[in-house]
C-alpha cells in the first residue's frame, strides 16, 4: 500500500515537473482610468446604487474582466470601479469600455452598453438595456443637479438635490433612437393606428397599464413577442 502511494506521488511529481504555475488572473486586461474625486454633498445621490456591486466589464476589444466592484455615476455618466488592491475608486476610461453589468442586492443584473448618441449633447453614453432585440428598449439613467427648497422635513437642508431625469428610447442600429415615455399614450403612439387597438387589447388582457418603467418593459416585451410592427 505504502509503495503504491509512493509510486503515485512520484507520478504526480513527474507529471508536473517543470510546469510553470502561473498566478491566477495573471494576464487579465488592466483597467485604465483616473481617480474618482467625490463632488460636494447635495441632497440625494449621484450614484445609481447605494453601494458598490459585483459586476463585470466587457472592454471595447471584446475582453471581459469579471469579479469587480462597480457603481454607476448617473450624474456624470461614468463607471466607477473600486480597486481593493490599491483601495481607490477609479473612473474607468469610457473609451475603453464596450459594456458592463452589475448585479444588485436582489440578484437582478443590470446591463449597460456604451452607445453613441446623436441627439442633443451628442457623444458616447451608457444606456441600460431594458429589453434587447432588433429594436431595443434602452434607458439613459441621468440624474440632474437642480435647486430645491432649502427647508425640508428636518429643518435647513441643502439647496440643491440630485433628481432623476431618465430618458427612455427605442433603439435600432439603422434607424437610431426614438424617445418613448413610460406612459400609455406615448407607448401606443409607437404603433400604427390600426395596430394601436390590438396593442391596447393585448395590454388589457395581460392587465398591464403602462405608467412606469416596469410596466413599460412588460408591455414592450409583450408586444415584441406578438410581432406587431413598430412605428419608428
Amino acid at each position, binding site marked *: 500500500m505504502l509503495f503504491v502511494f509512493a509510486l503515485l506521488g512520484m507520478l504526480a511529481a513527474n507529471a508536473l515537473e517543470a510546469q510553470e504555475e502561473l498566478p491566477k488572473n495573471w494576464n487579465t486586461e488592466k483597467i485604465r482610468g483616473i481617480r474618482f474625486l467625490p463632488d460636494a454633498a447635495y441632497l440625494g445621490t449621484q450614484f445609481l446604487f447605494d453601494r458598490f456591486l459585483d459586476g463585470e466589464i466587457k472592454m471595447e476589444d471584446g475582453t471581459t474582466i469579471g469579479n469587480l466592484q462597480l457603481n454607476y455615476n448617473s450624474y456624470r455618466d461614468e463607471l466607477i470601479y473600486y480597486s481593493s488592491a490599491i483601495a481607490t475608486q*477609479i473612473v474607468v476610461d469610457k473609451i475603453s469600455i464596450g459594456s458592463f453589468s452589475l448585479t444588485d442586492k436582489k440578484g437582478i443584473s443590470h446591463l449597460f452598453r456604451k452607445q453613441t448618441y446623436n441627439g442633443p449633447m451628442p457623444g458616447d453614453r451608457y444606456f441600460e438595456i431594458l429589453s434587447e432585440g432588433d429594436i431595443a428598449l434602452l434607458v439613459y439613467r441621468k440624474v440632474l443637479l437642480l435647486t430645491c427648497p432649502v427647508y425640508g422635513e428636518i429643518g435647513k437642508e441643502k439647496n440643491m438635490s440630485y433628481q432623476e431625469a431618465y430618458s427612455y428610447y427605442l433603439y435600432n442600429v439603422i434607424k437610431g433612437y426614438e424617445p418613448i415615455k413610460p406612459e400609455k399614450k406615448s407607448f401606443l403612439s409607437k404603433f400604427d393606428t390600426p395596430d394601436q387597438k390590438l396593442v391596447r387589447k393585448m395590454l388589457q388582457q395581460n392587465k398591464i397599464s403602462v405608467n412606469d418603467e416596469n410596466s413599460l418593459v412588460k408591455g414592450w416585451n409583450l408586444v415584441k413577442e406578438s410581432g406587431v410592427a413598430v412605428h419608428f
Partner: protein
Amino acid sequence: MLLVALSGKCQVKGGFSLFTDHDMYTSGETIFLKIFIPSNEQSGIVNAGLFNCRGKQVAAVFLEMRDQQANGYIHLSDTLSSGCYLVRTTTRTSLTQTLKEVYIVNRFTGLPESNVFLRPEGVIPMLETHLPALQIDGVENSYKRRETCHATLHMPSERLSQTDGNLFVSITKPSPEFNSRTFVIDARPGFSKSVGNEGMIISGTVTNPRTAKPFSNALVFLTVPDSSPRFQYFNTTENGRFFFQLKNYYGEIPVVLQCLDPMTNLPLKIDMSMAEDISTSLPRFESLNFSGEFRKVASKNVEALNFIKIFNQQQIKVQPVLLSKTGKYPFYGVPTRVVYPKQFIDLTNFDEISRELLQGVRFKEYNHIQTLQVFNTQRNRFFDDPPLILINGIPVRDLQIIKNMGTKEIDRIEVCLCERFYGILYFPGVIAIYTTKSDFSWLNESDSLLKLKLDAIQPPSKIISPSDNVFKEPDLRRVLLWLPSLKPEQNIKIYFQTSDVRGKYRLIVRGKGKDGKIFYQEQFFEVN
C-alpha cells in the same frame, strides 16, 4: 494524488507530423516546415526549433496554428558547423515533441575531414500511409529545364470527406544519400493548459543583485516601443518569476524589460533565458560514416547556394499581416494635451520646451539636479511626486535623458494632467515623449533593463516562384513547388516550373485523415 498524476498525463498525447523540404541543407539556406498537429492540441502557437546533437537550441520560431496545421521556415545561420541537427516541433503544453534529423553542411568549412557524423540511435520513425486512391495525373517522366509543367490531383470523394484540414503538396529534389527519420519523444510541457491558446509567453526571473536570490513582488515592465506603445507589467511570483503574454505580435519586435523593487524603487537584476535545452530527453547518438555520394551532393549544394547568395536570389516572400486595430489609445489614457514642438519656434532643450509649450508642466534644474512636476487639474495644484515619463513608451526615471531634448529630437509630447491608473499602477500625471528617431541608443542596458529583439509569431510567407521573379541568372531552386495549405477538392490542378538543377524530383501530396493518420501519394520525374 492519483488525480494529479493522471491530470498531467491526460494532457496532449500523440506526435506532431513534421515535414521539411529536404533532409540535407547548407548553412545560409532555409528549412521550410509543414506541421500537422494532433486534434486534441489546443495551444494556438507551435514552437519549432533547430537543435544540435547536444540538445542545445540554435534557432527557434513561433508558428500560428490554423486548422490544426502550421507552416513556417527556419533560416540556417552561416555560423552553424557541419553536422546532424534536429528540427523539433512541440507546443508549450504538449507532452510530446517530434524531431526530424537533418544534415547541415557549413558552406565555408564543408564536411568534416573525419568522414564521421552522429545520428540518433534506435529511434522508431513515424510512418505515413500510402494512399493509392489519391491519383496524380499529367506528370511526365521527364521535363526539360525551365519548363512550365502542370499536374492534376484526383481525390476520391470518400477520402475528401475523411480529410482533416488542408493538403500539403511539394515538389523537391530528394536526397537519398541521407535518409532522414522523424520520431517522437516525451516532452516536459512548459505550462499547463490553463495558460490559454493565444500569443506567445515570455518569462524570466528577477533576483536581488546583492543576495542573488529570487525577488518576489518585484515590478517588471515590458514595453514594445512604438508610436502607439504597448505596455504590460507583472508582479513577480514567490520564486521571482515573471510572465508576459504577447498577443498579435508578428515578426521581429523590439522589447524593453525593466524591473524594480516597488517599495524602495531600487533596481533589481532581471534574467531571461530564451533558449531551450532538450539534452536530457534526447536518445543516444551513434557514429556513422559518410558515403562518397553524400560528399559529392553536399559539395554541389554548397556551390549552388554560394551562387544564389552572390546573386542575392531570395527564396521566401514574407506576407504582411493585417491586424485588427487593438487599443485605440495608449495605456496611460487619452492625453489632456498633445504638443508638436515642430509647429513652434526651435527650442534647444526640454527646459525651454516645458516653459514655452507645456502648460501645467514644471521642469526645474537646481544644483545639476532636475525635477519635473505636473499640474493636477482635478485638485488644482501640482503633484508632489514626479510624473510617469515615457520616451517612445519606455518608462524612464533619469531626467538627464530628456534634459537636452529639444525641437529637433522630439516629434510630439503627450501630457496627462490627472492621476492616472493602469491596473494597480498609479501615475501622478504622465509625460510621454515621442522622438523623431526610433533608435534606443539613449537607453543604457543594465542588470535591471534589457533591450531585446524578440522573434514573435512568424508572419505568413510563401516561397518565391519564377512567376514572381524572372530569373536572369541560373535558376538553382531545389524546391519547385511548396503549397503547404491547399484546400482539398476532387480535382486540383497544380502548376510549377522546373529549374536549372537536373536530377530526380519528387511530387508528394500529403494530408491528414480524420483518424489522425497522415496519408500520402507521390510521383517521381526527371529534369534533364
